[in-house]
């Protein structure tokens, strides 16, 4: 199976975010970065499929020069080669432009399966995989929790709301967006890092940067607000009202 995994470099979760001067994106000049979490699971799933069914795993990232470090990390974990669609503008591009850049890099290679993470930890649109499938002319399925290769296609498990799951089948080629926690991530190894040095990272410049379909107007921190509500009545009544609020308003219990 020839598998492509699209991965993104995002700001680490522990980074204390700040908004940039134009207030349209985070200040990322001095941030530290890491591999987007769901993408790490997508890569792991691809490596497991390859181990079972043989084939090739190619990682692809559309991002600025610094993104090459996540590609190297993916190679160290076992990907066979990498494609880097390099452009500074891709650091905060919208889903449409990113999917376009990825599609151009992947199209000619005729992959059987394309995996992406469910969403990126920064913008969180959850759209790149879906738009990419459309551009590559492949069927897709999202929020995948399990993948089984079957005669002629795939059987996959999707996560629905409220603890429900759905099984469905797709023909190949196909694209899946992978949910975090689908598998157990392997650790990088010294041998893997040494082997990665000899693997190829092919640089591609996006031909004509696709014009974005969206424009970021402004970002801001959630406003902090404290609301205190007193629940009147006897302890029993108040407790009942509290449970109802937790279930229906806060939705923290079922």
């Amino acid at each position, binding site marked *: 199976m020839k598998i492509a995994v699209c991965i993104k470099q995002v700001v*680490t979760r522990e980074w204390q975010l700040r908004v940039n001067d134009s207030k349209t994106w985070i200040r990322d000049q001095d941030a530290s970065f890491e591999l987007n979490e769901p993408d790490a699971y997508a890569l792991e799933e691809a490596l497991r499929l390859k181990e079972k069914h043989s084939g090739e795993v190619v990682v692809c990232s559309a991002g600025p020069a610094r993104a090459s470090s996540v590609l190297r990390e993916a190679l160290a974990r076992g990907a066979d080669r990498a494609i880097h669609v390099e452009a500074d503008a891709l650091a905060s591009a919208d889903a449409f432009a990113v999917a376009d850049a990825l599609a151009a890099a992947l199209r000619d290679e005729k992959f059987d399966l394309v995996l992406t993470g469910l969403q990126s930890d920064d913008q969180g649109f959850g759209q790149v995989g879906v738009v990419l499938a459309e551009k590559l002319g492949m069927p897709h399925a999202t929020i995948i929790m399990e993948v089984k290769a079957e005669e002629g296609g795939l059987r996959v498990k999707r996560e629905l709301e409220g603890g429900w799951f759905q099984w469905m089948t797709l023909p190949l080629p196909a694209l899946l967006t992978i949910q975090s926690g689908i598998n157990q991530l392997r*650790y990088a190894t*010294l041998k893997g*890092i040494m082997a990665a040095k000899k693997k190829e990272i092919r640089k591609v410049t996006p031909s004509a940067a696709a014009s974005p379909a969206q424009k970021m107007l402004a970002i801001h921190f959630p406003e902090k607000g404290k609301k205190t509500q007193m629940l009147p009545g006897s302890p029993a009544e108040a407790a009942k009202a509290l449970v109802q609020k937790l279930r229906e308003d806060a939705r923290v219990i079922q």
Partner: protein
Amino acid sequence: MNGPPADRETLEVDVLIVGGGPAGMSAALRLAQLQKEKGGEQLSIAVLEKSREPGAHMLSGAVLDPSALKDLIPDFKEKGAPLASEVHHDHIYFLTKNSKFPFPITPPPLRNHGNYIISVNRFVKWMAGLVEAEGIDLFSGFPASELLYDGARVVGVRTRDQGIDKHGAKKSTFEPGVDIRANVTILCDGVRGNLTKALVRRLALDEGRLPQIYALGIKELWEVPKDRIAAGTVIHTMGYPLRMEEFGGCFLYAMPDGLVSVGLVSGLDYRDPMFDPHIAFQHAKQHPLMESMLRGGQMVRYGAKALPEGGWHTIPRVYADGVLIAGDAGGFLNSMRLKGLHLAMRTGMLAAETAFDATRANDTSSAQLRKYEDRINNSDVRRELYSVRNVHQSFSYGLLPGLMYSGLSLVTGGWWVRDPMPVKAGYEHMAKLADYYGDNRPDVDVAVRPAKIDRKLTFDKLTNVHFSGTRHAEDQPSHLIVHDTDICRTRCREEYGNPCTRFCPANVYEMVDAGDGTKKLQINASNCVHCKTCDIMDPYQVIDWVPPEGGGGPQYEGM
């Protein structure tokens, strides 16, 4: 102990460097240079670093004395060394609670002209790029957990096993550590390095030396209005918030674009068991001198790290069969100048030269590696450290004697009536509550000298830890091993009032209700910023810091 299970891999290299700080990176670069200069069969070199990416565990002031850099990388400017600013203004103040008294002259060794203010995180990242460009294997995210021996000879290290859950069981992703075997292992594992500590004990390398004395540096990176302080300004203070009995002082270094490093270094040989270095740092920032510079700014990073301050007489034997020790791991730091970077780089280079010759000569015995000591003795390292050899020790007699001595030592070349000065290990200085407070025993769960926390200028430890970027995989055994937690509940609570809850700058140690009216120790290991203070300062010496799973720890971007 060293018997490998069947699935443990082995890697063989000529020279292994443990720790990718200034010492380790300099050693790697120097080896690559010697290789090019002298030709011959290509040496295989590897560097092991515990942080997720190079430089991530680097925290320093930092004012860099560029002497070693100039020798190691003469074209450092062309190569784009990230030197934030040259030092232009140099001030030393003695602080009282509300006032400042400038020192009339800056004594020559403390002058910083020609030095650079840097972010050591950026600097080490830059060095890492040069190291990788030489084709050297730089493994970040791989802590070395133990040394491998053949009798008394060091033959390499074992990296930490990955994928063990918090109960000690192997997870499905378990990845056994790798045995890296090397002709020479250069330990650059920094202050209180876990491997150096084990080696020094096992081979008694500190025999006849004074015990090391440490200090804890707590630092924040701030962004203040751009025109507030001229880039290149260096300020050091003594006195408040520390008292006469405590050693240390503050630093404030201004970089371009309103970026400011501010920190407090406090000696880990204080007497008062209730002393809390983090609170002292909050007091420091509230001093008018500091407050006037930070006001209206924003704290953007936080971190802490210990420094070895004992100086020349505390440096252990830094060579043995198959192994060399460089940088802070060996105690090469000039506490009077608050500078260790250039000495780390220099000793890393000298260790590399020794390791190179030894490997070429096919003799990596202690007798051959002893040449490292000769190289050190003939270098600026000794010239610099020997002249200030009794400085911190003299401060263990208090601030005034310390100051007098530091002043005198500039005249006498470091000579003292009793040379070396006798000194106890830092933790032995801590007094018991009863001895320090007599009948006025304080409530040990409440700060004796609290600081007002406003989350603008001053912060509580937990908020601060969020700004250190610290992260550890949650499901792993605690990497802080307290060999006897019973002591915490009983003796320590009574005698010292659990000082770990105060000296740890990351709120790792907490005494929580045990449910029976007593308190028990809770270890929040995932907060740990790897400063090593607990391993150093615990009065019963029952805490061992061991490396956590690879990549865990702080993320000191820009520090």
